[in-house]
């Protein structure tokens, strides 16, 4: 964009008014996004908070304390942490391997492999057949049933492949001439060169495992093994539709669990932002 002077002189006036209104409007969109979260945050530490009040009058961390004290609250949180970390590692490993395999154009069966991955984006067996497959293979109450379908998706494989295609092929050839096996090429060249891709796809996988609710409901019937999302849902629904007869203490606890479940993400978000923007735009914007 051309640099333009900001002034209220004739000719520039309409433009300047527009720019002020625009800046103001976008500020309102930010407030709309952030206000509900701030309200929940205030509600979680101020027992006297109600309705439209947004200012803290009292600070009281007892809701957080009760989460940290009760094992039925903190155990699901630890399950969430554990499944997210292991799931992201497994998912990233599978995704990168699949991406590396499908950039091998000359490999016999290349077309079949690509079609096999692609077809899963088009068509699936549906809820009940998948549920029964997991059941009959004895994967109920096994975290693999939660981690794998979320961690390994055709979309992420294709994303990874587009990243790998930006690595100059001469690098692979040089490594092969030096006698590197495909595994060491993968480990020593491909992975170190695609750190931004790993960060970007890793973030997507981690977020979707952390946020997963449905797979836990379906495949993890054991209440001791459930994750924090399921716990949050249970707690919020514990007194029927949109809160009839909520006592304030319960409201505080509900707000606190919401803050606890989004906090880890807000912590890493600023560091990873530049990677995921790349993850979304790579290959999607065609000139």
């Amino acid at each position, binding site marked *: *964009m051309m640099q333009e002077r900001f002034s209220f002189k004739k000719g520039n006036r309409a*433009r300047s008014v527009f720019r002020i209104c625009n800046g103001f409007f*976008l500020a309102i969109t930010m407030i709309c*996004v952030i206000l509900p*979260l701030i309200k929940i945050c205030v509600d979680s530490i101020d027992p006297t908070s109600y309705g439209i009040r947004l200012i803290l009058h009292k600070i009281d961390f007892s809701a957080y304390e009760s989460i940290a004290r009760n094992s039925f609250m903190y155990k699901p949180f630890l399950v969430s942490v554990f499944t997210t970390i292991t799931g992201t590692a497994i998912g990233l490993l599978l995704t990168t391997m699949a991406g590396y*395999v499908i950039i091998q154009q000359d490999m016999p069966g290349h077309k079949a492999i690509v079609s096999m991955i692609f077809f899963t984006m088009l068509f699936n067996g*549906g809820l009940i*057949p998948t549920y029964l497959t997991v059941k009959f293979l004895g994967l109920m109450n096994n975290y693999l049933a939660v981690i794998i379908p979320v961690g390994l998706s055709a979309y992420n494989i294709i994303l990874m492949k587009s990243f790998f295609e930006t690595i100059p092929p001469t690098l692979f050839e040089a490594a092969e001439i030096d006698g590197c096996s495909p595994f060491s090429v993968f480990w020593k060249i491909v992975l170190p060169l695609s750190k931004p891709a790993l960060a970007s796809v890793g973030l997507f996988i981690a977020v979707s495992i952390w946020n997963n*609710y449905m797979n836990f409901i379906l495949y993890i019937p054991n209440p001791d093994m459930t994750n924090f999302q399921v716990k*949050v849902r249970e707690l919020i629904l514990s007194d029927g539709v949109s809160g009839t007869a909520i006592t304030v203490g319960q409201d505080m606890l509900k707000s606190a669990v919401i803050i606890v479940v989004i906090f880890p993400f807000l912590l890493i978000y600023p560091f990873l932002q530049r990677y995921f923007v790349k993850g979304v735009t790579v290959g999607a914007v065609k000139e």
Partner: protein
Amino acid sequence: MAKKTFVNGIKKYKWFYLMFLPVFIAFLIFNYIPMVGIVLSFFEYTPFGRPVFIGFENFRTLFSGHSFWTAFWNTLCISLVNLGLGLFCAVGLALLIDEIHSPFYRKLIQTINYIPHFLSWVVIASVFTMILSPKNGIVNGMLQLLGIKPIYFLADEKWWRTVFYCINRWKETGWGTIIFVAAIAGVDQNLYEAAVIDGVNRIQRVFFVTIPAIANTILVVFILDLAKVLNIFDPVWVLQNPLVQRVSDVISTYVYRIGIDNADYGLSTAAGLFKSVISVVLVTVANQASKKIKGEGLL
């Protein structure tokens, strides 16, 4: 000779096959074996008995039932309105963000607006159940200041869909702009200069230069979203309750209710199969349309 090169090729790439093996097994278990399970739609099958072949009986039950068609039309209506609003808001917001010149302010707007995309639907439903609560919620608090009686937004058939669309926009609008902001930044500057020489004003520039230039990107996003139209599940599932089932039930929630809650596996699989087939048709049609319009398909 041809056979020999094939065998040599396999030998040369043996490590790659080994690398693909775990991925292959994962796809087999979670995607391809379930596809075989589709035959269940021709059986009567519950957890309490052996499957009995009944031909097309499940489909007959399905298509003659009232609730299935309610779910079907609800799905189309909710998803398409959601898709249209989503594209409109995302393109609009991207155009406005592009007019911000201060890099810091621009970054701030984007950073804040992306946040809700990363929150789970469970969290979002929880947040809005509290925000919209008729007793303690901030929204009804404001309405009360204006002298309006509290509204049960999520339990009122009149309000549910409006609220649903708003919550969806709250979550995804910011995220949706990423791709359009990138596309707008990629528009050839010469086009703008030529337009200025032709005496085109600011607003005309948006409609005659920017939007046509990013039309391809809009089309790509539209087609990719269209493919997912019938799959809408999580947002409806977490915001739904029995009081608003008539206006909110969609195919996926219907499949879940019949299959998991009522354990009628055959009927549920049939409904799911119907959904998948229509989805494939939609994607194919969209892809053909894209071929017609811009000369190349997406798939």
